[in-house]
């Protein structure tokens, strides 16, 4: 609120002579710059939700990383099955929800786990239950959105999938490639190299390079960090660049606190030394946490809504229209009938509207620029 008042005063000083009345002052300064603050207040009241999926073979430290990221113990009552019991296990989907609050901001965190993935002898299509689950969430949201009461839609869509690559290989294995290819257009995939404490720094670098090459080679679209705006601070841009060059992150997790260099830190105690989870020279855990929670959480949600969900929706609608055309039936599962493919006139209209929108955006930008200049 102080900044608002300051801004007002500045504008006044620069533009207007001292004899302006309050009414004329209002004419110069519109005041919609307070919008972000209003949004902020509303969101804090409402709270946020975030759904994170973890996938990878068992024993790669997924639950430990989740516990370390959110500083909670989500897996207290977990019972590990031995190999005999796991003979007939298929891939399951389990959900754990926890409400965390920090400085007045509430977060409803849902972790979707995939036990059994990649553990069998024959892992053909072991990612199918996972893709089915993601599609189910999209479908449910689609129905809710098209329903009559849209006030309280529960958003269970998966916003991000952390995929754990074992450090014991020479890069991606066939099962890793197939999994990521099946999911890269449905969810934001962030590949991680797990249990990185068994690799020396040069091995980490080599492995990261290989994984990056293979991801490119197979055309897998992992989550890309959005480009920095050109007017961001230099420091932020530098951080962003470092982040991008560090992918995939090599992480280490820990459920235990050890004493290192006189402090109590999360780490792992070995006879030859102590690995500190939050030490940047030991692993990229801090970078992952910053990226996932502190800078890009909202962007992940946006990309899920704007890209993955829209893809799903478009596919769904297309299928329905083709089905309708085939069956010539009018009863569809949804209350709203999808539009037929637009003809030339409607396309023209759409184009016109697009151009109008562009013009308005340009005007807005110009106004913003002017305000910036006046501030300075």
């Amino acid at each position, binding site marked *: 609120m102080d900044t608002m008042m300051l801004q007002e005063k500045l504008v006044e000083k620069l533009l207007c002579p001292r004899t302006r009345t309050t009414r004329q002052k209002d004419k110069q300064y519109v005041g919609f710059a307070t919008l972000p603050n209003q949004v902020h207040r509303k969101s804090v009241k409402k709270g946020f939700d975030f759904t994170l999926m973890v996938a990878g*073979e*068992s*024993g*790669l430290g997924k639950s430990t990383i989740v516990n370390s990221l959110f500083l909670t113990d989500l897996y207290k009552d977990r019972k*590990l*099955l*031995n*190999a*005999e019991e*796991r*003979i007939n296990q298929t891939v399951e989907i389990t959900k754990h929800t926890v409400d965390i609050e920090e400085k007045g901001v509430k977060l409803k965190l849902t972790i979707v786990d995939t036990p059994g993935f990649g*553990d*069998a*002898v*024959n*892992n*053909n299509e*072991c990612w199918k239950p996972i893709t089915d689950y993601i599609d189910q969430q999209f479908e449910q949201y689609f129905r809710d959105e098209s329903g009559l009461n849209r006030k309280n839609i529960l958003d269970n869509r998966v916003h991000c999938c952390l995929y754990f690559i*074992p*450090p*014991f*290989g*020479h*890069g991606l*294995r*066939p*099962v890793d490639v*197939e999994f990521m290819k099946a999911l890269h257009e449905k969810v934001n995939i962030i590949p991680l190299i797990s*249990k990185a*404490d*068994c*690799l*020396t*720094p040069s091995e980490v670098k*080599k492995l990261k390079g290989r994984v990056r090459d*293979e991801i490119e*080679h197979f055309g897998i679209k992992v989550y890309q960090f959005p480009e920095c705006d050109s007017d961001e601070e230099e420091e932020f841009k530098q951080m962003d660049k470092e982040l991008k060059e560090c992918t995939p992150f090599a992480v280490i997790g820990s459920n235990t606190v050890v004493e290192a260099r006189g402090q109590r830190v999360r780490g*792992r*105690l*070995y*006879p*030859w*030394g*102590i*690995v*500190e989870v939050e030490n940047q*020279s*030991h692993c990229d855990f801090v970078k992952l946490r910053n990226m996932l929670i502190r800078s890009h959480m909202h962007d992940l949600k946006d990309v899920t809504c704007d890209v993955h969900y829209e893809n799903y929706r478009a596919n769904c609608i297309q299928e329905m229209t083709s089905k309708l055309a085939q069956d010539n039936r009018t009863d569809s599962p949804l209350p709203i009938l999808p539009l037929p493919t637009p003809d030339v006139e409607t396309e023209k209209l759409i184009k016109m509207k697009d151009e109008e929108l562009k013009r308005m955006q340009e005007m807005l930008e110009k106004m913003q620029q002017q305000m910036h200049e006046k501030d300075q």
Partner: protein
Amino acid sequence: MSDIVPPEVRPKPAVPAKPFHVAPPNSVPSPQGMGGEGQGSGRGSALLGYIGIDTIIEQMRKKTMKTGFDFNIMVVGQSGLGKSTLVNTLFKSQVSRRSTSWSRDEKFPKTVEIKSVSHVIEEGGVKMKLTVIDTPGFGDQINNENCWEPISKYINEQYEKFLKEEVNIARKKRIPDTRVHCCLYFISPTGHSLRQLDIEFMKHLSRVVNIIPVIAKSDTLTLDEKTEFKQRVRKELEACGIECYPQKEFDEDMEDKSDNDKIREAMPFAVVGSDKEYQASGKRILGRKTPWGVVEVENPNHCEFSLLRDFMIRSHLQDLKEVTHNIHYETYRAKRLNDNGGLHPISSSGQDTQESNL
């Protein structure tokens, strides 16, 4: 006329008093004494003099040093678990080519291949022909059903080869031994339990070859995690009826049993391999250098590599070969002869001419 001369009167052979260490092999004592220099040996209950049977050990040693040893070791495990590095560390030489130099296309062979490489290494005058049999492609595909079959087939083929040579009329003086004496199975250090694939492989092959399971890349486990993991693995192996080397049923006496029990308690060995040397605690040691410390390969507090090496090479090397020959090979042979009615000559694929009859 001739009285039976009482033994005490018989002239004693002139033999120098037997010293407490082994007599040099050249001193074959003469059977007839020349003079009265003989001092009574009076050793043991039956021997009236030093015969020199114990020199047979020395004779054997000389012979085997001349002929040399064969040792065939097979390494099985998913790619990237450090198999080649461990073998290089065990035998302190570059006997196994590391696969990081492979290009992407060669990386995952579609079926399990068997690649064997032989080297002759020498130490202290003893020559050993070491053959390392690698199994790239094991467990790397999405569908790994029956990926142990090529391995099983290879092992049986070696037995078959040996059997054919044995059964020949004109046998070679020394049959080349390509049978697999030891199979090191690499377990991935997940910290939870054995994977399905591990159990299936060991079930199918523990009756055919000596399997020694090792936990690969164990520098990712803390001490507690290591003990827990090992316990769980041992329990699972027992529950599935898998007998790894040293098998309980082949313990010959109490001493063997107690030695082997100690080893069985410590298995599977959690190992770390390395072929790079670093400076630590004042000397150059093999290890892995990380930002938080140096993992010393031969330090028993860090990992169990030295236990594995001592067990496999320094105490049980010959035993591995013997169990393979006396037990696994015999089982195979008995099965083969029974199947064939016991009288027909052995031919492998029907193409070979029949050379011999039993």
